[in-house]
Structures are given as C-alpha cells and as structure tokens.
C-alpha cells in the first residue's frame, strides 16, 4: 500500500474555497472505473447546478466491487452454493456549507433505509459514467430538498450550541493493489456438507445449518477535495448453528462464528466437523439442563461472551457521537442515541481498565484483525485512539461530522449499506492493570457469589445473536427487546462450596446497562482476538470489528426467566435413511 499526503492542510482549505477544480492525480489509464468516476466528478464539480440555487460544495463517489461465495448446508445436505458479484455505488452530495449543510437530517422514512445503488458489472466506461450521471443528479436534487427541510426544522427547533455539520480533513491518496475477486469455495463444498451430515447423528437437534462465506472487495473512493483511495478487503466466515427444544418447550439455539480476514485461516474439513460437533454437544447439554427462574449476582463472561459484552455494552454505545436530526420521533428507534456519548470525561469502567481502538494494528498474536484499516471511508487516515483511560471515557470514534466535545475526525468513518456514513470502532484492545488467571477468576466468582449469599455464581460462555436464533423460531410475533445485552446461550452454575460446574438455561438479562461496566471487578490474563460482525438497528452484520480481551467478571448482574415456550413435536425426527 502506498500512502501519499497530497497537499498541506492550508492548501486543502484553499481548494475547498475555490471549489473542486483540482485535477485528479494521475489515475492508471487501465482503471476504467476510477477514470469514469474522476471524469464524471470533474464534470459534476464544474457544471452541476440547479438554476437559481446553489451548487454542491462537496461531492464524493464510492464504488465497491464485491464478490462473494457462499455454501449453505441445512439438516445434512447442501441447499445453496452460489457466487455473487455486486458493484455498488455510494454518493455524497453536500450543499450549503461546512457550518450547515443537507447532511444528517432524516425528513422521510426512506432516508433511514437508503440502499446502495447498483452499477453495471462490466468495466464499461460509458455505462458507468451514465449511471454516475443519473445518480448524481438525483442526489444533488435530494440534497437541495433536504437542506430546505433541515432549515425549516431548525427554525422551529432552534439549537443552543451551533456545531458545524462537516469539518475539514487532510486530503489523502491511498491505494492498495486490487485484490483478485475470483473467489473459489467449491473445494470447500464437501467439507461443509460433511460437517452438516455429522450433525445428523445428534438425535436431539431439530434443525441445523453450516454456512461458509467468503468475500473480497475493491472499494474506490474519490472526492471533490482531491482525496482518493482504493481499499481492498478479504473476509471469510464459518457459521455453524443448531436448534433444539428443551422438554418444557423452551427453544434453544447455539452457534459458532469464526470470522477471518485471510482465506488460509479457515478451518480444515476435520476441524469444521469438530466445531460443529461441539456446537451440538453444548446445545444438547443446555437442552437437558434445568431452567432457572432468576439470578442476581456475579457473572463471569468468558470466551466469546467477553467480546460480546464489550460490543453490546461498550462499543455499540459509543457512536454516533452526534445523532442526526429527525423530523419525526418514531424514527429515533432506528437510530437510537448511543448511551455513552454524553459520558465523555466521566468514569464508565473501573480505574484499572483501559481501552484503545487501533485500526492501524494488523495482527494480534498471529491473528489478522478484521478491524484493520489505514484510511477510513471518508479518506481520512485511521488513528489509534485511547477510549478509556483509567476507567474514564476520554475519546470517541469520529467521522468528519463533529460533536459538541470532539470537533475533528480521527479516521473512524464507515460507510454502511443504508448510505449512512457513521463513526465505528475498529480493533478494540481491552487492558487491565491487574489481570487474573482463569482459575483465579473462577475463585473470585465463587467468593463474590458467596458474599451475595448465593449458592452459585454464573459463568456465561456465549450470548445470543438474534439474527441467527430468529431463523429457528416458530413464533411470528417476537417482542423487540429493549435490553442492551442478548440472552446467554451457553451458561453454567459454578457452585460456591465446591466449585463444581453445572449447565443451566432459561435466563434473559434484566436491565443490564452500560452502568454494569463499572461493576467489572476483574479481567482475565488469557487475552484473545475475536473478529466479529456487528449489527446496527437497521443492518445486520453491518461492519467488522475486532475485540481483544480476556474474560470479564462483573460483580452484580440481574437476569430473569425466559417465558416463551413452543409446542413439542409429536413425531420423532428421522434418524435413519429411508429404504
């Protein structure tokens, strides 16, 4: 990767003032896509204006070429094996000025659920430019309309502190070598099939699925300030999931997701089978386990659950630093306020804890990190930021949309599929001044549970992912949970008196909030990197993050009983082949 700082900051401001007339730094003649983007952006910059209205002051184009391959096996056989190519276009046209522009105002429900625009797949200069022309025209007119709506909204909802809508950023040119988009998973088909067939031997399973996905993408970006990037991405994900019913009708699911950024890190066929068998054994152990009515006391979140605690209670509540303006109140449910952004400079974790977000870090303990990037989706250099210092929240991931307390970008902008550019975390490193071994954590769990007067403490190894468990639900009327934390899937009682461990089930969080982070009393010293996909309220699996953490012991957390039940099957699942 080569990185070029194109011009000084002062020069950059002059460029903005002069509006968009800088010729694009030389683009490879054979890069048809980049050439079409540059030529149409140049024409847009010079000529696009609605008579009697203002021209854009900023335009950016982003085209992502994505190729994905997917193999899905359900209940013991392949149900789908496909390869898809998408070329998607994102456009940001801004009218007004940096102080007040059309951005981040939701005047219509469609603004919430925007979708990327599709482009022709062929590297056809004329075809691409034609579509860029049409999409830009629509975006510019929409921007003018939105600015008028935003001004009208602000007139009736005056703000007390004026914060700019868009801040200047250093213009960068970053170019990766494009990745080969011709992924081939066909040699893995047999492995996925075998893993799915292996699960057929577990009589207690009702349904199961093994999914192997691989994606490669080349993302090209260009803006009217002269910034440009070509970023590449590789991602592979193995997902194994299964469902079973407990004797009392509680539906249980279990899953394992392994996300890698290197296709060579995918497990071997034998390893996939072993993982699948582990998922099944854990699930059936839970199905046989007694259901609890409630629990209050210490909880040790280990393995995957520790990383899930960080994403659900912490990183998911850091952004956006500044919410969009919304015409109607109901829209807020789709872009809820992040619960930690108003706690900058306040203590949100115990003093012994520190958290950094380092997108520039590529590896941890030999594992390639999914959160790695050198430039964000606004072409701003990604920066390592300290989020928690001695328990205090000191910074937030920022895009070029400033907040009241943080007025500049730190290179954490992500472009989501619904066309929103939002700040996101990338690679989180959870550190502690005092770490403990896993054995010491279990001892502390028992000790603390005893102090609560409990017979046992709770050990949680995996939390639910609703987008997976909902596939198996027979209920069509599921209640939307207001809890930040999802249900524990794999959990155990750890008895105070003798330390024995027994599986349990049937609990759902009862008002576990960001304040629970302050109740962390210990962090494990066995630190692992967990590559994960994080969902937003609008888009499942919206972006990748890495959480590097050890187990987390929370002193006091409350759970209540899961009450929903489903009727049991009256016939037995077929276990042998038909003759």
């Amino acid at each position: 990767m080569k990185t070029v700082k194109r011009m000084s900051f002062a020069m950059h401001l002059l460029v903005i003032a002069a509006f968009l007339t800088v010729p694009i730094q030389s683009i490879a003649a054979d890069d048809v896509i980049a050439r079409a983007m540059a030529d149409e952006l140049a024409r847009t910059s010079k000529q696009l204006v609605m008579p009697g209205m203002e021209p854009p002051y900023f335009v950016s184009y982003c085209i992502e070429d994505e190729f994905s391959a997917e193999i899905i096996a359900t209940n013991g056989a392949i149900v789908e094996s496909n390869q898809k190519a998408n070329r998607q276009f994102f456009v940001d046209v801004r009218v007004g000025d940096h102080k007040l522009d059309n951005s981040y105002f939701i005047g219509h429900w469609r603004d919430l659920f925007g979708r990327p625009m599709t482009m022709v797949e062929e590297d056809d200069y004329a075809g691409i430019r034609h579509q860029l022309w049409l999409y830009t025209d629509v975006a510019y007119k929409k921007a003018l309309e939105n600015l008028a709506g935003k001004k009208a909204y602000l007139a009736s909802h005056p703000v007390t502190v004026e914060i700019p809508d868009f801040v200047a950023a250093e213009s960068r040119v970053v170019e990766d070598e494009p990745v080969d988009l011709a992924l081939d998973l066909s040699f893995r088909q047999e492995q996925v099939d075998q893993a799915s067939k292996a699960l057929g031997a577990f009589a207690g399973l009702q349904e199961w699925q093994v999914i192997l996905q691989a994606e490669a993408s080349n993302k090209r970006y260009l803006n009217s300030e002269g910034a440009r990037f070509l970023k590449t991405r590789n991602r592979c994900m193995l997902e194994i999931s299964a469902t079973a019913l407990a004797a009392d009708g509680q539906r249980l699911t279990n899953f394992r997701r392994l996300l890698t950024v290197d296709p060579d890190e995918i497990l071997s066929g034998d390893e996939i089978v072993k993982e699948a068998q582990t998922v099944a054994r854990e699930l059936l152990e839970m199905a046989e386990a007694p259901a609890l009515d409630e629990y209050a006391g210490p909880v040790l979140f280990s393995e995957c659950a520790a990383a899930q605690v960080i994403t659900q209670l912490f990183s998911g509540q850091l952004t956006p630093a500044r919410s969009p303006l919304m015409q109607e109140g109901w829209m807020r449910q789709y872009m809820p306020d992040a619960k930690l952004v108003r706690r900058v400079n306040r203590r949100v974790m115990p003093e012994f804890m520190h958290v950094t977000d380092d997108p520039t870090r590529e590896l941890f303990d030999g594992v390639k990190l999914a959160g790695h990037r050198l430039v964000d989706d606004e072409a701003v250099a990604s920066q390592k930021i300290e989020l928690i210092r001695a328990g205090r929240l000191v910074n937030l991931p920022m895009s070029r949309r400033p907040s009241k307390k943080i007025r500049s970008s730190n290179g954490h902008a992500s472009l989501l599929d619904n066309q929103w550019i939002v700040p996101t975390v990338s690679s989180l490193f959870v550190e502690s001044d005092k770490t403990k071994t896993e054995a010491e954590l279990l001892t502390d769990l028992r000790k603390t549970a005893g102090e609560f007067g409990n017979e046992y403490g709770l050990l949680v190894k995996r939390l639910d992912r609703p987008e997976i468990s909902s596939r198996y639900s027979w209920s069509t009327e599921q209640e939307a949970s207001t809890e930040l934390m999802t249900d524990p899937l794999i959990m155990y009682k750890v008895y105070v008196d003798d330390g024995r461990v027994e599986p349990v089930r049937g609990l759902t969080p009862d008002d576990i909030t960001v304040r629970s982070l302050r109740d962390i009393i210990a962090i494990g010293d066995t630190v692992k990197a967990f590559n994960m996909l994080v969902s937003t309220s609008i888009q499942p699996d919206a972006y990748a993050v890495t959480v590097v953490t050890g187990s987390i012991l929370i002193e006091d957390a409350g759970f209540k009983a899961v009450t929903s039940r489903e009727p049991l099957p009256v016939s037995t699942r077929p276990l042998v082949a038909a003759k």
Partner: protein
Amino acid sequence: MYHKIIQIVLLCALILLPGLSEAEKESGVGDTELLNLMQFELDRSFKNLKNADETPIYYMQYAVIENRDFALAVTNGGLEAPISSTLRYLDVDIRVGSPELDNTHEIRSDNWRDNYTPRRLVQFPLEADPLAVRTTLWNETEYKRRKALDRFTKVKANRQLKVEEEDTSADFSAAQAQQFEEIMPEQLFDAEYWRPVLKRVGQYGAGLPFVKNSSVRLQLTQKTTYMVNTEGTRLQHGACYIRLFVNFTGMAEDGMELRRTEGWNAASFGKLPSEEEIMATSRRLGAELKDLIDAPVVTPFVGPAILVNRASGVFFHEIFGHRLEGHRQKSESEGQTFTKMVGKSVLPDFLDVLDDATLADFDGIDLRGYYKFDDEGVPAQPVSIVENGVLKEFLLTRSPIDGFPRSNGHARRDFGREVVARMGNTIVRSSKAFEYQKLREMLIDEIKKQEKPYGLIFQDISGGFTMTGRGGTQAFKVIPLLVYRVFPDGREDEVVRGVDIVGTPLTSFSKIIATGDDPAVFNGTCGAESGSVPVSAISPSILVSEIEVERVRKGQEKPPLLPPPNKKGQGGAA
C-alpha cells in the same frame, strides 16, 4: 381488498453468479430419488400424525419446487453480472378437521391477518440425501401441523359466532390421484452467443440521446415440481420459461417518466427472435419513445376506443378473469361481481372466453400459462367460462363453491404461498370479427356518431390492477404504454401520453361493439394472493363505444440538469 399487477418488464438490478458452463454440461433436469424419499416421509408422517391430536389430519401434500435460473442483462450499455442459480423450496400443506370444514376455511373478521398467511420460504436440499430430505420434511410438517391445528380452533369458533355463510359448500373436494413422472430436457443457455447480442442491442439503446435508462435482459427459468399427497398422487413435471426484454425509458420535459418495452417469451431458445429482429424492434421502440416524449398530454376523456389485441388481452385478464377465480365467489369479503350470474349474459353475445392451460402454444408462440398439473396435483383442463356471452363456469381449485363441486385444475401459487384459483391461458374468441382496418373505420364512425373530437387506440398496455373486495371500490385501472389519438377528419394519428384506463367491469363490457380478427398473445406474470404465476392472454382487438381515461400520477422531478455523458451531439463529455 385484492390488488394485482401483471408485470411486463423485469427491471430488477441483478447480481452475478457463477459461469454458465455447468448447466451446459448437463443433459436433463429431474431427480428420480427425491419422489421416493418424499413418499416415504409422507407415509410415515401421515401414519404418525393423523390421529395424534383430537382433531385429525385428513390430508397432507408435499411439494418441492426446483428453479434453475440463468440470466444475462445489459444496462445502459454495460453488462450486468450474469445470474446462475439452482434452488429448491418446500411447500407442505396439511388439512385438519374434515373436507366439510377444515383449517383453510375463511375466518370472517375485520382483522385482515386472520386470512393472511405470510410467505414462508423453506430451502430444500439440492441432493436427495435421505437424512437431510426427511429431516427437512419432518420439521416443516411439525410446523404446519401446529399452525393448522391453531387455525382450525379459530375456524370452529368463528363459525359458531357468526351468521350462516351464503356459500355453505365444503372446504375440500375429492380428486383423482395422479401419477406422472418426466425428465425435462435441459435448455442450454448459450451465453457466448447471447452476451454480444445483448451488448450490441444495449449499446444501441444507451446511445440514443433521449433514452435515460436502457436495459436488455435474457432470462431462463427451468422449473421442476415434485409432488406427493396422501391420496396417492405422485408427480414430477417441468416447465421452461425463457424471456427476452428490451426496455427504454425517457423523461418528458414535464417530468413524466415514459417507457417502451418489448418482450419475447418462449419455452426453448430456438423460438427467440434473431438479432436483426431484436434490433429492428429496438429501433421501433426508440422511435416510439421519442414520439412519446414529444407527445401532448391527454386530458380526462370518455369516448370510443380500440384496444389492440395484446392490450385487449390484458384488459380481459384484469377486469374479467380475476373476477372469475373460484375463491372470490366463496369469500364473504369479495365483491362477487359474477357469483350469481351463472347462466346469465355477462358479455356481448358474440364473445366466448375460455381458460385452457393445456395449450402449449398459439400460432407458433409459446404460452407462459401452459402447465400439466396445477399446484394441487389436478391435471390442467380447458374451461369454457363464457359461451355466447353467457357465464358458464368459474376457475376452480379443490375448494368447491356453490354449484361447482370439483376442481378444474386452476390451483396455482408461487412457492411459499397458499394456493388459490388463478388463470392460465385466458382466450377471448369472437363471432363478430372484422379486419383491423374495418375496425378502425368503425371507430371513426363511432367518433362521428358521438360527435367526439377524437377517439383513442391503445396499442400497448403494461398491466394494471383491479380491486375485487367489498371493502374497496371494486373498480379497475389499466396502465397504457402507447396510445394514439384518432381524429374523425382524416388527420394523421397522434401519439399522446399521460392517461390510465379506469372503470367498473359490468359497465365496461357492455360497451364492446365488435372485435378484430387478429387474435394475439400477451405473455406475462400475474401477481395475486398466491404470488407471481406465469400467464397468457389471447384476444383480438376490441372496439368499445365508450372508455374512460384519467390522468396518470406523474413524477415531479425535473429532467437531469446535465446532458448525458458520452452521447454524440450532447456536449456531455468532460
């Protein structure tokens, strides 16, 4: 309220799937082992479940639909990613109670959800792996059994709480068990031939300065249905749908979006037109689009008109055909326009209407409404709906209606939906047919007789919708694409734009004066409660003494501010 649209054009943006070579290697479509496994699990499930509850299961049906899809498209001159996929979906139907009253019975309530089942997509193994096939069947059977029992409880309570229904016929009728198995020949999608053809046609459209968006698309769907039921039916049959479309859109200065489309449908690639024909059609579409962009907007109008054959086919499909679907005669929420008119005159006495899904082609054109068995396993059969203007029969599933106790093979659905009665090949025949030129002269006579300034010729119609429910207006709207204004004084016909045809069915049919002798095929896709199904309509041109048009809902956006890039003479290139 019932809402439907015939789709003429698919304008979906598509995604790339693997190359097409795999399909080209295979020689036949069909899985001989699958039916055996389905039969085995059906027998086991029925034996285990039929008396497992207080309410018995009396009928079960398993159907697996396999769709092999291939597509190539060119948008604005550039190739889209090709599509290639094979997927199977499972439908399990379970009836509890008895044929007289079962879980499918209509629940009379103000809550539309009581009679609405969301689409349920159950992906099915692509190989006949015994354990996977049987596990998937077992799980879905348990799910559907639970849903059937829950609904039957509501049905029984509803029947006790509400007044007696007008139509007290049973919920399910007997049908003869069918056995049929065929291996369909593989249709080879020759991408190497078609890719450059589509590209050349696409580039022609993209190069027209007034064309805002252009697309050319070729798609193949090869469908195989596997079905078994507890009455002994065992079916494996296939169908092949090939569609080629050319679509150009443009925008008038007043913001009205306009389009011209032509489509070809076939069951084999050999019946598609040559490149020269496609290109000639594209040139015609381009010229028509230009005329439309420059055309005046018509104000609301009532007067005489001709609906040219294919447009007339759509007109009959929308306005007449849907009102003859069996379930609409039974449902207490439907308008039942024709329910009590059997044996009475509903159309002019020179018209016959039949629906014949056994017809594979008409005048050399393959029909999309052709099928061998319907989605309840009943063989397709010709149904004479109207003879000499008199209503004789409805389109029927195995849900009988008053006076019509047996299915006539019109139960249809897209996978994941519940079956209802649907059209197949709807055919309008006339005994008062004239050459088109004569029909046109009759139109001019009618204009003069009514002292109207002009009449209209509807050359092309995209589709429309009709509302048949009692909760709505029970009116229809048909969306013309190409309309000409015909003057009585010999002036040249003039292209006009901006109108939809509206009306109510009984009034509209009473206005048909005569027909042409030029029956033609409209092949389309019909959307209704049971999803999208392929259909055909065959009709001659019709002359109506009076038709009402209203102004269309028009876009308010201004045309693009900059001229298109890359187009000669437009000055758009940077």
